[in-house]
């Protein structure tokens, strides 16, 4: 019996090397993951001992404690973080500025994910822990809102954060805690008008055209926002953060299996399939950076 299985299996692997390689990769990855998790637990235990509170220094927390009401804004860049901080309602809105691009967890070994300086503040602020230790009951904010610039680098940051949340805090997305903020794309104002009050905002090209028409169509200037930092605090609150006027985009998963495959494809370490994907979908690209 053992003998037969041994010969046949060896034969099978000889003829299907890719299957064998996949199994070995899987085993290696699993062993690394276990090793990493052990290290991470140790690290977190140590930090808990040394520092009383483990909230990141950059976090501007809110004073509401009821997680149902609170919101955490993950903001791209310190420049936008500042205006978000002064524009927010500090009762229920917390701001965590992220510097630059966060780590791509899909390409990184697990032990590097824990304790990564770009991800650690997010983990600490959300408060649920990560991976196996994840506990949704410890969630500190009801809404995790990703607020990035409306340009292509902002798109990239959204993907990077989603990859991290999907891989390590999947339950947050499943239970509908993750949102995108939607900053306006255009500011529309009368030419030579210095009064910002008159300005109106458009969130899409159609809306922009409609507003221009409503305002009479003459002497109107529509400027495209390049980044959140271009808005001052008041504008940011009005357009993007005020629950009464803003639009939030709730991230939902229709098919978890295809999402899983998608992240491996787009963010994983195999270049060739990614190139093929880009080539096949290049024609769907709309808002290209110039």
């Amino acid at each position, binding site marked *: 019996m053992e003998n037969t299985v041994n010969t046949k299996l060896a034969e099978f692997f000889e*003829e299907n090397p890719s299957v064998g390689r996949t199994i070995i990769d899987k085993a290696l990855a699993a062993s690394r993951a276990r090793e990493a998790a052990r290290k991470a637990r140790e690290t977190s235990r140590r930090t808990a001992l040394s520092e009383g509170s483990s909230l990141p220094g950059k976090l501007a927390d809110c004073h509401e404690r009821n997680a149902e009401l609170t919101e955490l804004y993950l903001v791209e860049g310190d420049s936008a973080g500042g205006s978000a901080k002064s524009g927010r309602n500090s009762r229920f809105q917390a701001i965590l500025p992220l510097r630059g691009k966060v780590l791509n967890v899909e390409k990184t070994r697990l032990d590097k994910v824990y304790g990564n300086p770009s991800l650690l503040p997010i983990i600490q602020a959300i408060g649920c822990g990560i991976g196996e230790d994840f506990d949704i009951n410890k969630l500190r904010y009801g809404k995790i809102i990703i607020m990035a610039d409306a340009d292509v680098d902002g798109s990239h940051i959204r993907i990077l954060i989603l990859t991290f949340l999907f891989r390590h805090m999947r339950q947050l997305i499943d239970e509908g805690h993750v949102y995108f903020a939607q900053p306006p794309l255009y500011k529309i104002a009368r030419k030579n008008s210095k009064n910002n009050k008159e300005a109106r905002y458009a969130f899409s090209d159609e809306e922009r055209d409609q507003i221009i028409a409503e305002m009479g169509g003459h002497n109107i200037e529509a400027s495209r926002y390049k980044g959140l930092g271009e808005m001052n605090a008041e504008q940011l609150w009005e357009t993007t953060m005020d629950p009464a006027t803003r639009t*939030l985009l*709730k*991230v939902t998963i229709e098919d978890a299996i295809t999402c899983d495959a998608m992240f491996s494809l787009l963010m994983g370490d195999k*270049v060739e399939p990614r190139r093929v*994907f*880009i080539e096949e979908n290049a024609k769907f*690209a709309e808002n290209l950076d110039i």
Partner: protein
Amino acid sequence: MSKKKERELQRENECILFENQKVVDVDMEHEVKKSFIEYSMSVIISRALPDVRDGMKPGQRRILYTMYEDHLTHDKPFHKSAATVGTVLARYHPHGDASVYGTMVHMAQPFNMRHILIEGQGNFGSVDGDPPAAYRYTEARMDKITDEMLRDMDKNVVNMIPNFDNSRKEPEVLPSRFPNLLVNGSMGIAVGMATNIPTHNLGEVIDATVYRMENPDCTIPELMQFIQGPDFPTYGTIYGTNGIKEAYMTGKGHIMVRATAEVEEDKRQIVVTEIPYGVNKSMLCAAIGNLVKEKRVDGISDIRDESDRNGMRIVIDLKREANGHVVLNQLYRYTQLQDTCAVNMLAIVKNEPKVLNLAQILDYYIQHQESVITNRVKYDLAAALRDAHIYEGYKLAIDNIDEVISIIRSSPDIATAKVNLMNRFNGPVRSGEDIDLAEFAADENPGLSEEQAAAIVALTLGRLSGLERQKIEDRLEALHAAIKEYRAILGDINRIKAIIKEEMLDIKNRFNEPRRTRIEAVENEIIDEDLVERRNCVLTLTHAGYIKRQATEVYSAQRRGGKGIMGMATKEEDYIEQVVSVHSHSTVMMFTNTGKVQCIRGFQIPEASRTAKGTNVVNLLQLSEGEKITSMIAVTDFGEGEYLVMVTRNGVIKRTLLSEFEYQRKGGKIAITLDEGDELLYVLHTKGNSEIIIATAAGNAVRFDEGNVRCMGRTARGVKGISLREGDGGRDRVVGAVVVDDAKHLVTVTERGFGKRSPFDDFRTMANRGGFGVRCQNITEKTGLLSGIAAVDTDSDLMMITDQGTIIRTPASDLSILSRTAGGVIVMRLPEGQYVANFTVVAKEEKEDEETADEEDAEMIETVETAETPDTEAVEVTVSDEPIQEE
């Protein structure tokens, strides 16, 4: 807490939770995919990759254009870097200041650029990886050669596009009057793809461009007479030319670059004076230090970086007993003292990333130059036409000077004077188009346009002097000549090419420098190859795809074709399908049933013992589902004048130059485009004047000249070679194809073990291919269908293999010579249900000489394989007259 406050809080909570909240669901998969495409396409098209025409990434182009706008040329004083960076950000580049400064610094670093485009003042970094000084300290201006990148910008030669906030226009591409992409190279990582184009010698690239313009159909090896290879600003030596050739032919290749080092035996030192391009010197020294610490390299006692203002000098002290050359070789192997430059010539062509070969890069550049020069001449023409128009007005005024003066004097103001002039000269106004001077004078009632009238009233009195009048006429004449000239140029692409050539050669004269990087051809570049013993081998491939390599001697001679030996331990129900003789260092071309070909070196196929099963080919080649090897050809070089003739199961034949297969890609190349349901079965190696016989299972054969099959491109479908018999359940198929050799005989063997030899003379050469052919073997119930054919001489042995994996070797001379229509005699007695699966012709053992040249050897053995025969139950095998000896 007061009631009022509580209520307020309550209301706010409701507001946060539900009221007026606009929440739209978005599907993560859709959102991420869309964002990803936007991001990746932006990075690919407008960030990380250079344009094929000017070799600039958008960031670089914006810096140069900004400096051009601000007149920061080489003859002006240096300008603060911070100011330039700020201007670039404000005008064209809405991104980080650090990245703009980094890009600017790169263009100023003489160890990165073959010709720097920006001249820096202050600390601009070093090969040690030291950072440049902050931008508030440094100053910069464009270098002299950068003028050529931007020359004629003011003449609308390139397309201008709006900047990010629509407030200004920026060039889509720079005029780039020298081939900057190749000269300065480019390196960039985008998403899903990256580029790495090495730097080149300006003069060589210009010469190649000029040659390409004169010979648009020239080959890449011809271009390589000019461009010998990359020329790095850091000197060094390129080792081996194969990588260069591959990179230029395919756009991708690996080039080995070595540092320049001298072993000074008397001082017991190795002195390194040049390091490979892109290598960080301090990291290199640290790496050598680590090697010593880890004891991976013995014989080094100390390493010092003695570089100073006189140049680079790394000194490695040797221990007393060490051999300097051995140590140096170890350093080459283990450190970046020898570095591989992985060339990947990817650039943006018409908004799409493309991997380009050398000729394509030059062609796109030449196209760009043609457009630049055409636009420039168009601009000059328009300007000349405008001027000519004004000067015609002057001339008219001078010819009628008294009248003009009196009109002006009698007018109350300038505006009226203009109107009065136009009223007086109210004939047809010449537009400046199609002017002929003689005709102009003859015109009786000339007219003035408003522009001309305005110019006339603006004339100064001094212009009316005799000398000035002559000047106006001379100028007009010159303008007319220029207009004629510009029109002639625009109408003749060859004149545009001549201008490009002349101006480019002028740039070469002014800026060319001798080549810095030496190129050394190395005979045997790949070390692996040298480690493998050179000898002749036999490759066997089974039906299930197991392949192995054995020394030829394993199949030892047996007298009088008696004994069968187990040629290969096969899996149950597997049998050997192909046997081919190769030299360990020749290239084996593996053709598959789906019409593709992949190459592998003989020594790359694992050697195995006679009874071992071997390795499955899926481990060596990239095969898709259902794809299998049907033919193997061993070649030593891909010379000109050699051909591959391919024959499919359904009788299609195709001939292609062997040299078309020289450059291989992973995953294989298409060798023939097949009809639905057809398979590629036989491939022959011919010299262009051979005759070919194709045989079918029904026992028919056709012979014709290979010249009848026109030579086609690699991916062509081919033409009809032989017609198959209809009916018989569609069992008729091609079972063999051989090259006619009159010194040999044609052997036919049937599935039931009948065989014979027939003279090739028995087969008449048909005038045309594609017929049914003539009988080559009488097929009966007893003989079974034809199994295969081969060409043999009397010195050959016949090696037959049954579908059970048993091999019998019989001298070919033992087979009777019979007429082509005969049924043959039994050569292999087979039990019921067993078939001859395949047979192969091998040289007689005693004739074999170990020193035989590969090529001869490859020709001595030819393979003929049958199409699949049905698997049968394992039966005790008996062969010929004598019982089989099991091993």
